[in-house]
């Protein structure tokens, strides 16, 4: 618009003298300045709130975390001096840490390979093989855990594995299968328990993504395979699975990350116990900071976990075409 205005102005006074050209230059400069000011204002109006909130509650905490990890802050929140002790503890001093990291690996790989990818894939394949309505019905059932608030979902699990005779599992085992006494999964098989409880939720994400990918495969490929004599398994192996390569790697990377850093369900279900048997790294950070009050050590551990997480995320993006997400904007009018 400013350009138009100055053009109109030039046309009105267009007698061809030197004065008009100078005047025009002044106008143009003023118009440019106004455009720049508007540009800045737009930036502030549109992006300002997002930037302020993100910096205040996202960037600054990271900086605080780095700062605190170099101190000896404890429960009293007092800092007496700067030290590298916390990092010494992370890399050499803490003898429990190797066990925690091993546990984290078992938990992430176990949940991922059994439920999030494999079972999610099976559910997607099976529910797309039957009629559409029945398929959505069963997918809806498997989405139920994801739709329930975490506290409630774990409440149900605590009921199922209740160590007394009232527990659902114990009722089924004792009445249906003639098992002698009540079993206590929380102490006898805690790792399996947290993997299953998380897997029931994790499977649904893979299921949804794989389902929409399978729906996207052109029908004629299946017809062609069938004409060539392919059975159900051959169709799955040679037609469906190759089309799912991208979704499968996406789910794997995404879920690895979220399993690595989440501990909500474990905290609610076993509190990381018995002792430290089901404490994964993320939960260990939380327990160190808020149970033992070692804020400095917690911060150092958190930083360690952040580095692992970010490395995983960056590695993951190498597999994907991230540039596609960053396409250039299409309108550049102020």
């Amino acid at each position, binding site marked *: 618009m400013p350009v138009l205005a100055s053009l109109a102005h030039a046309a009105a006074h267009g007698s061809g003298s030197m004065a008009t050209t100078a005047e025009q230059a002044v106008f143009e400069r003023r118009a440019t300045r106004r455009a720049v000011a508007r540009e800045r204002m737009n930036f502030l109006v549109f992006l300002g709130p997002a930037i302020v*909130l993100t910096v205040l*509650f996202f960037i600054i905490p990271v900086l605080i975390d780095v700062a605190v990890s170099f101190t000896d802050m404890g429960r009293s*929140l007092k800092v007496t001096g700067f030290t590298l002790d916390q990092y010494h503890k992370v890399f050499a001093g803490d003898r429990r840490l190797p066990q925690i990291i091993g546990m984290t690996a078992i938990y992430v790989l176990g949940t991922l390979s059994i439920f999030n990818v494999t079972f999610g894939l099976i559910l997607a394949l099976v529910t797309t093989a039957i009629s559409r309505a029945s398929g959505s019905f069963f997918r809806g059932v498997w989405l139920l855990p994801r739709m329930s*608030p975490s*506290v*409630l979902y774990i409440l149900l699990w605590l009921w199922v594995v209740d160590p007394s005779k009232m527990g659902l599992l114990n009722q089924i085992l004792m009445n249906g299968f003639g098992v002698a006494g009540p079993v206590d999964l929380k102490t006898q098989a805690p790792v399996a328990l947290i993997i299953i409880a998380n897997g029931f939720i994790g499977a649904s994400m893979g299921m949804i993504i794989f389902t929409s990918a399978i729906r996207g495969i052109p029908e004629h490929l299946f017809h062609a395979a069938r004409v060539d004599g392919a059975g159900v398994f051959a169709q799955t192996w040679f037609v469906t699975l190759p089309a799912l390569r991208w979704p499968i790697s*996406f789910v794997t990377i995404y879920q690895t990350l979220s399993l690595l850093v989440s501990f909500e369900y474990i905290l609610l279900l076993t509190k990381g116990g018995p002792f430290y048997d089901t404490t994964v790294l993320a939960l260990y950070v939380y327990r160190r900071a808020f149970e033992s009050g070692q804020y400095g050590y917690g911060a150092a551990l958190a930083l360690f976990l952040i580095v692992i997480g970010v490395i995983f995320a960056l590695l993951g993006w190498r597999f994907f075409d991230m540039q596609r997400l960053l396409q250039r*904007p299409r*309108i*550049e009018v102020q």
Partner: protein
Amino acid sequence: MAVEATANGMGAAPPTAAVDWSRLAARARNARRARATVVYAFLIAASVPIILPYFWLVTVAFSAKLGVAETGVLWRSMLILVPAVIALWLAIALTRNRRQMWIAVAAVAVVTTGLFAWLIGPDLWLGNFMFLWTPDFASVVRSRVGEVKGAVDFPNIWNAFGNSILLAGSQTAIVVAVASLAGYYLSRFQFPGRTAMLRSLLVLHAFPVLTLIVPLFLMLYFIGLLDTLLGVILVLVAFELPFAIFIMKGFFDAVPWDVEMSALTDGASRRQAFLRVVLPQVTNGMLAISVFTFIRGWEEYIFVLTFLVRNTNWTMSLYMFYVRDDLMGVDYGVVSAVGVFYLVPSLLLYLAAQRFLMQMSISGVKG
């Protein structure tokens, strides 16, 4: 399998002999039926472990008079519910059009309700929901089993309910407003550092936010927002923003820019064009984000547990947690009634917003 059988049959038959088509068709039909049976058997077996606990929750909430589930009621309602679910599924699968389907579903619903009223009706017991009108319900429950003083001092449930609504609602409002503005700017304007900003948004989206709980706790403590709802709201908003901005950017990218361009040529400013022309085109995106953020706020547990202390600041998740912590083993009926009360809004929101959420998850995957 069916096709394989046909192919083999054709191969085996000598070229001159007539092919027994009807026999082959029957064999194919049987193979297909066998396969469907296996598939359904698997799906039903896989769904039972999920449905059973929820079923238990609801039944206990509405029928347990003495604090424990009565086996008879459980069996009887099972007897009604299992055929009802099968009938419902048949109604959906076998009917040919929408109208028939709704009629069949309504018929099943009426019959099931009738059966429930007849067989379970006498056992219906709403006393478990007394927490809705008796703030000090824990003592009442405890006095039944002889214990007098509980460990937890419960606030009024409506207080926790209001806090949850306030938390989730204001979080939603802020996220939607801020993410729409930022998403539009990132989608339409070129400025130095745009690519870097998008990249850092992706990093922030993948960032392990739960690890920031220690520094956030310290920060909120120092600026005096610890144990206030405002502090939790701001923290949760910051964590939801990167994802929400990305989703909104995707929705803005999908709006054809001719629409906007014509608004600009008609003399609208960028802001007017944004408010009057583009924003109405992305209502679906805004709805998707609202529902998603609201549910996240409603469910939030770790941050409220760590940042909120006073029981007048409790949200529903904390209320649920402490009810479970305090009364599990004392009275299952009340615990499950609170559970039902907490679960239903979440489920209703998901059901109402299914369409938008599907759109979002797909565009989220695509970027």
